[in-house]
């Protein structure tokens, strides 16, 4: 098992956002986490990536507990993430933003940086190369590499964000609504990309609202609402589950 979440609970001042949730994200597979808005999905991702501490429960990854670790320590374990509201770095070019994502590939600290020791020079080359590879992977045109990252159109920024997550060769990728705001072509490209990453052995935990994408792509689906698990299984199992249909009834009518 790659990622194992047990009895995960998060309470905020009286509101229980996540309530005793348990699921697995098997190695090398795409696991989707779905549910209506406000179901607690992003909160779960925030707990896994270390931005928030759970009130209760455990998160275990590759045999080691993640609870209690800080965000950067979790990133150093090979877990990367994209964000629902696009946390792109400002005042940086596309290339620099992705190079920042490659932080863990480097070693130099402020002193070596100030003195411009050879290790820093070599490192810059390595980081730049890794960034370029990642950007090519997500098909961001080379002509845009030096443009300010936040000046790019939304769809491209999303891709840059994914490149930033991929550049340090993570083994677990947490995607928070990556298809939000993308047009059908872009969504299809994204689906291909994720499928490709899976075939390379990456474990993916995907939070998404685009049902077509979820059902086509996922190996297993976890459905939640009001912080609790509703059901989990293969896409077809989940699609025919009456509880799931009920939870989504409002959403479906709105989306139809």
């Amino acid at each position, binding site marked *: 098992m790659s990622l194992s979440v047990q009895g995960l609970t998060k309470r905020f001042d009286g509101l229980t956002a996540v309530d005793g949730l348990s699921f697995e994200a098997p190695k090398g597979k795409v696991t989707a986490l779905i549910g209506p808005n406000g179901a607690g999905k992003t909160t779960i991702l925030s707990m896994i990536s270390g931005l928030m501490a759970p009130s209760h429960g455990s998160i275990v990854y590759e045999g080691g507990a993640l609870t209690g670790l800080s965000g950067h320590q979790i990133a150093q374990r090979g877990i990367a993430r994209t964000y629902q509201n696009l946390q792109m770095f400002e*005042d940086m070019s596309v290339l620099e933003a992705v190079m920042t994502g490659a932080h863990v590939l480097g070693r130099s600290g402020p002193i070596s940086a100030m003195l*411009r020791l050879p290790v820093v020079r070599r*490192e*810059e080359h390595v980081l730049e190369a890794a960034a370029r590879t990642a950007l090519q992977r997500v098909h961001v045109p080379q002509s845009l590499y030096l443009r300010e990252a936040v000046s790019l159109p939304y769809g491209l920024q999303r891709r840059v964000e994914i490149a930033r997550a991929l550049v340090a060769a993570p083994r677990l990728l947490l995607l928070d609504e990556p298809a939000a705001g993308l047009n059908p072509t872009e969504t299809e490209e994204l689906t291909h990309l994720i499928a490709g990453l899976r075939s390379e052995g990456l474990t993916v935990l995907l939070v998404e609202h685009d049902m077509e994408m979820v059902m086509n792509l996922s190996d297993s689906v976890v459905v939640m609402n009001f912080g609790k698990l509703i059901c989990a299984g293969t896409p077809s199992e989940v699609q025919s589950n009456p509880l799931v249909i009920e939870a989504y009834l409002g959403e479906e009518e709105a989306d139809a």
Partner: protein
Amino acid sequence: MSELSKAYRHNLRGLAAASIILALIGASTSNSFYLTTIIFALIEAISAIGLTLLFGFAGLASLGQAAFVGLGAYTAALLVERCAFPPIAGMALAILVPTAVGWIIGRPLLRLSGLYLTMASLALGVVLSLVFSQAISLTGGLDPGFMLNHAFSLGHWTLDSTKDMYWVCSVCVVLTLYLAINLIHSRFGRGLRALQSSEAAAEGSGIATVRFKTAIFAIAAGMAGLSGALYAFFMRSFNATAFDFSLSIELLIIVMVGSLRSVWGALFGAAVVTILPAALENFSDYKLFIYGVVMVLIMMFLPDGLFHGAVQGVSRLLAGKDAK
């Protein structure tokens, strides 16, 4: 492969140009008043470079830098005057002591965010300036202040004339700029800049945000300490009022007037902030008011700094189209 390093080399070329300009100024100016004004600008620029890294790049608004300037000044002065340290060693410790203090204070301080951090740094700065003025046996306080009988010297060369100190300060400014430019164009530098936009995403990229903030806080403190040492060696006689809250404010204004985004702005801002009051000397009572009005206008209409605004204005003129 080298587009990114172009920006770095650009800055290095700028550094070379700045060195040449400083050298020319030094060779051609003998007027003591002008030199003194420029020396003050150079000294403040060094602290301002540190604050630009801290505030402009990492987004940490510290209103207490004057404390570190004072710490550097008194460290150098006490070691040289009372413990017979060679001035260069005094200067080295004037950098190291504030750096260490900055590191120690930084760890708990930087767990606070935004406004709280600013408040805490403000309080710390004022507490330390009170310590400087009250610890009379160590520092001479406000009156009589500290008297440094030894001038700055390197080995056998005594560098005590105004012109000599101009060269020393220029060299220090160039070195500080070099270190700052190197820092910015590195993994550490990018991490700092990431901190400001999104701490969450920075952590998610493996950047230990608290450690980074503490490190840059310490580095900025060290640079402020160097400023303090230079001030002590130049003035030879000084008192605690030099390191009070108004200096912290002045440094912040230098950074805001200069440029939040570029260490070159620190030089520019320091020049404006030092030269403007000197030029306004004739207006005596109105000086403070005019100075304030100029600052307010710049902050209102050129929020990225005067330097940045000037650079943009020039590029637009040269390019003839929108330069962004």
